[in-house]
């Protein structure tokens, strides 16, 4: 092989499994951003009785490892119960692929994160949380650490794009250090809303620009 990839990885990259979107998914999640070069979206259909993942699909923007890891993670998760699927780690994906080059490990982390976030979103929206902790500032910030600042390729908390967060009676207000008419403002708003809306007690997300 000319590049430091296993046969399996190349095979999955050329012929990925479970590609596409699910219409009206029971849950979905996005991790990464084009700004950092990798982005994965995962869509789930879950059997409400058995809590099994009956269908799972992905979309991916990124390098070969990114596409192959997303493919393998969807294969590992398909047919498993949510509890079982939560136990899948990036190491499982890495092992199945015959070992990723060290600089590409983040791709596996990204795909597994997307799976776990999608499952968590499902739990929030279907009353499956074991303890219903009310959403607070800390939880919001934890989630926003997965939203990428499109100008810098780093998360919006690190780049201080998000200046402040307020949580009040199910309404989350996120104050953003960006003009509303800036090129990326629409994307930032969308991604913040997508991150926070699934939380079980959040009724409304407001993104407030400068």
């Amino acid at each position, binding site marked *: 092989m000319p590049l430091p990839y296993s046969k399996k990885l190349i095979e999955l990259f050329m012929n990925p499994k479970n590609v596409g979107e699910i219409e009206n998914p029971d849950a979905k999640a996005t991790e990464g951003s*084009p700004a950092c070069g990798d*982005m994965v979206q995962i869509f789930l259909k879950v059997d409400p009785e058995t809590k099994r993942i009956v269908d799972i699909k992905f979309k991916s923007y990124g390098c070969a490892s990114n596409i192959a890891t997303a493919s393998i993670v969807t294969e590992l998760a398909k047919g498993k119960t949510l509890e079982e699927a939560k136990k899948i780690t990036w190491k499982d994906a890495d092992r199945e692929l015959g070992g990723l080059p060290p600089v590409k490990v983040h791709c596996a982390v990204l795909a597994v994160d997307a799976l776990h976030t999608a499952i968590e979103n499902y739990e929030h929206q279907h009353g499956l949380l074991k303890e219903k902790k009310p959403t607070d500032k800390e939880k919001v910030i934890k989630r926003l650490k997965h939203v990428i600042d499109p100008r810098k390729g780093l998360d919006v908390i690190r780049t201080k794009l998000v200046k402040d967060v307020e949580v009040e009676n199910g309404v989350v207000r996120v104050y953003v250090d960006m003009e509303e008419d800036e090129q990326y403002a629409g994307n930032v708003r969308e991604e913040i809303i997508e991150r926070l809306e699934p939380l079980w007690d959040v009724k409304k997300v407001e993104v407030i620009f400068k």
Partner: protein
Amino acid sequence: MNELKKVYLDNAASTKVDDRVLEAMIPYFREFYAVPSSEFSHSPGIQIKEAIENARESIAKKIGAQAEEIIFTSGGTESNNIAIKGGAYGQIDNGKHIVISAIEHRSVLESAKRLAKEGFELTVVGVDEEGFIKIDELKKAIRKDTVLVSVQFVNHEVGTIQNIKEMVNMVKSINPKIIFHTDAAYATGWIDLNVKDLGVDLLTLTAHKMHGPKGVGALYIKKGVKITKFIDGGFSEFNLRGGTPNVPGIVGFAKAFEILSKDTIEYVKGLRDKFYEKALNEIEEVRLNGARDFEKRHPNNLNLSFKYVEGESVVLYLDMKGISVITGSACFSRTLEPSYILMAMGYSHEDAHGSVRFTFSKFNTPEEIDYTINVLKNVIDTLRRLSPLKGE
């Protein structure tokens, strides 16, 4: 089983040696292997010295220089090292400030950075979104103590050709003592170079991007320009570079330069233009990176970004189909940083990730262009179907 087609489209990195070049070189391995020497020697040594001097003469003529203004080196990297470091130290009595552009080859960039560590001051001049150096910024960068300016002739990634003559005139009108260097490694053979017309003091050449051998290049040093010697060990190359010269390489270099014809260049341009036209016709949302005016672009260079997809995937997929190209994507680099050249051109990370460089040569055929476009169209379709950015 079908033999996998091999299509090499990375000719800005290096090229296949022409058979005539190889044949010219072989005797200098088999028969004429003595150490070159001009006097007080045996006849084989003198004969080989003659071969080197003929090559020097021939290469000098190609760029409008005198033979004694050309020194042979181990390639573009060494020539750039000698030019930047030797040039700056050679003029140290006049000051310690140097100026380069943001999109120089690493051999210029890192030589300049080393000088900055050694007490020189470095100013890096920016470029516009097509990769042209901002002339006003260059003008503002010139100071009383500036001793050396280095701006590449043509960019190896996006193919943009700079207006070196204009820059030399501007710099020299401020201070004629400033030494102007241009890295013409990627231009060698491809683009007309006349040192007198350009007015440069130093100019870098390399052999292997025009079907010559690797590991040999030259530096033009205008008569009277002081260069500090770094490779000690003898008086060769006008006492500027010690060491036994790479005789077969030098002979091959001159041969390659001689045989690269206008017709060849027109042929390659034709392939490149055909490829671009087909890419635009058959694939949607393609962006051209680098100079839009093809007269200001290296004849073999095309650099494209495909919206919604990432470059490393494209490169790997093409590689699986036997097609060799490179990308400016971060995923392709060990550091996971996108191309510093595209970033200097003001690209967003996302746009830099999508860039793919296609560089052609006389060994490519129109059939290869058709094949590559077909594969490329499929790759881009497939990856876009996968991409969460498409159809949002």
